């Protein structure tokens, strides 16, 4: 479903993503992890056609990212980390605009939006009357997730999707992506909340400085490295082993 072949992105002299290659079959939920600045968001932006790779390519649902970017875009849904929306549109106006970009007829779009309203426990009046600028962060995130799934894409990229969602919405969202994966959708899930990744994902890919560090099932990787949890494995791999001691030392500086 997703296949990366030496995908590389350079910004001047800096290599953000360095010859990344891996494949993700249909129906899999992949946790895409890395410390800040590892190249996760850049990779996701390349895979969604937002920025052009400097080298290498990727295919999504058999379409080459470089040669057929529009075909790729029709088949992917993306929840960006920024959660950006057009704040001066109402939720409904925004979602209808997104639906139109995927050529979804208005009747079908409204029926689909209705389902999301019900699922996400959004107030109908809020969606039709309030401008997105007045939404809470969680409500806005729900709209962004709805906008990513509205056209029923076979591949979905989530970049910190739980940011701003309350506990109930987060539980519902996790169940939703697991069900979507069971029905054949491919899901790439980038997050810093590693216990959620450990519970939800079938597989994790850890990158650092743009390079692939580790790829495998979370339980197998944790067992193989004897770290007990994915979080400990992550900090071990990405140079965070001294963090707890450093945090303690730093906290001492706050003593009166």
């Amino acid at each position: 479903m997703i296949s990366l072949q030496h995908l590389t992105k350079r910004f001047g002299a800096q290599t953000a993503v360095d010859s990344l290659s891996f494949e993700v079959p249909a129906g899999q939920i992949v946790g895409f992890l890395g410390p800040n600045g590892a190249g996760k968001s850049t990779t996701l932006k390349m895979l969604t056609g937002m920025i052009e790779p400097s080298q290498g390519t990727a295919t999504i649902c058999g379409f080459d990212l470089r040669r057929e970017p529009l075909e790729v875009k029709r088949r992917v849904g993306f929840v960006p980390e920024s959660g950006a929306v057009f704040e001066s549109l109402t939720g409904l106006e925004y979602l209808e605009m997104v639906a139109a970009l995927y050529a979804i007829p208005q009747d079908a779009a409204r029926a689909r939006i209705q389902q999301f309203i019900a699922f996400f426990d959004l107030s109908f009046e809020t969606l039709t009357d309030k401008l997105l600028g007045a939404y809470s962060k969680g409500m806005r995130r729900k709209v962004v997730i709805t906008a990513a799934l509205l056209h029923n894409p076979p591949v979905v990229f989530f970049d910190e999707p739980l940011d701003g969602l309350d506990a109930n919405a987060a539980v519902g969202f996790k169940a939703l992506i697991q069900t979507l994966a069971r029905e054949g959708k491919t899901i790439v899930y980038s997050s810093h909340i590693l216990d959620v990744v450990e519970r939800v994902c079938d597989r994790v890919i850890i990158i650092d400085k743009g390079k692939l560090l580790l790829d495998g099932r979370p339980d197998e990787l944790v067992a193989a490295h004897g770290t007990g949890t994915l979080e400990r494995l992550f900090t071990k791999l990405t140079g965070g082993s001294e963090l707890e001691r450093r945090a303690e030392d730093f906290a001492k500086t706050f003593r009166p």
Partner: protein
Amino acid sequence: MNAPSDTPPPLQAAGPALSPGRTLRRLFLTLFLRGRSSRGLRKESAPKSVGSKLALALVFYALFGMFALFFLQQPVFALSVYLHAMTLVFLGMFVAASAGEVLFNKDEADILMHRPVTPRALLWAKIGVLTEVSLWLAGAFNLTGFFVGIGGKDGGWLFPITHAISTIMEALFCTGTVVLVYQLCLRWFGRERLDGLMTTAQVFVAVAAVVAGQVVPRLLIRISGTIKFNAGSWWIGLLPPAWFAGFDDAFAGRGIRSSWELAGFGLAATAVVLWLAFGKLARDYETGLQTLNEASAIRSQRRAGRRWVDVLVHVPPLRWWLRDPVVRASFLLTAAYLVRDRDVKLRIYPGLAPMLVMPFIFLMQDHGRSDGGGFGVAFTGGYLGLIPLLALNLLKYSQQWQASDMFRAAPMPGPAPLCHGARQAVCWFLTFPLLVLFGLMVWLLRGENLHLPLLLPGIIALPIYALIPCLGGKAVPLSLPNEEAKSAARGLSMIGVMLVSIALSGLALWAWSGGWFKWLLLVETVLVIAFYVGMRLSLAAARWRPLE
């Protein structure tokens, strides 16, 4: 999550999907009219300032366009040159000011770039909106001109039709030229430098438009006594408005050879600009949009250095002036936005440009008067007060207004120190440099410094002018969304200051000629001190106003 039984009432059924092109055009027009961000709670009560401003602008343009009545019974070419020149200035300012935000919006990349739309479709939709709004403005301004042309010396019923066509051509030429400049800058300098470059260019366009519209005609009249427009003049072919006026003259006027040549030149220039901007260089726009996503990565590679303003606040006299750390922090914040922020710069500097022109006009009128004049100098001094007043009013608005929540979270009883910091930044970076410029202007235009003291009454009143926008703690920098900018209220305060300036100038001149100027300065100083102390006390007592 809701159970299916809780399903809300069905949304009304609607028709088939709009095409992506139409969807994008509708989207960008809505965003243009409503503004990009909003904190309005409901759709009905949402700030529609941009939309209402546009409606007001159309009325204003239509009223301004009535100056075309002065061209009754004049040749079509002269009327058309006037109409097209003014249209080009207005549209140039409008498109230059709007294009950056419309063409390159960072948030928009995250929302639209992963959708199945091509950058070319985005570009076309945006250009469509810019052109559409340009045409509304041009139509409003030319409304009177359409009818005046019918009654022109060599005009007729064909004029409204040809002028409508030439105005559309001009709007396309204007939009195309601005987009082309953006694309060329992108190609030559890259997206990272584009922002700063275009901001500077836009400020210069605004200043140049005011100077060209107000100062140059006065200078020309002063030099040659009058301005004569003739389609046969060799230099007229260098002026784009003349090309489009040539079109009108060719079809609805005299139809002489030089008019046809100008019309041909206008058509060719418009076609070339459109071909380059929307065809040949469209690929550069795609690159620009992509680089927009990469901007943060590139920016991080910049060399970090200490800002000159950071150094400045730690050496006298600013160190003495900015002893309070909150005032200093607010000063630095305001200074940073005055220098760096594109949005703030685009509001402040083009807003101040007309300020420079008014004293210039009064000084020009003053020049060469047998009684020695002096009113222009006094008016220039009084008019300085508009600078802090206008700048502080404009500095309240920012795209990042939500970040100002930190002011309320900080342990401060009220917004007074923030207002003082902003006020002092405006004084140091805008008012004082312009004071020097005005002084130089007086000296150069009058060729003597005898009347320079007439600037003093205005200068002495400056602290009061600078405190007026702060009263009630209202001048907290960058704390309100752009959409809440109330231009009408600003206009009223400007008129108020202008009247006070005129009154003060008259009084100063009276005192000057009556020999009691020193007494006037003394009384004014005492009054200013008393008012200043009272206003500062009032500001110190101001508390945070409740959030909506």
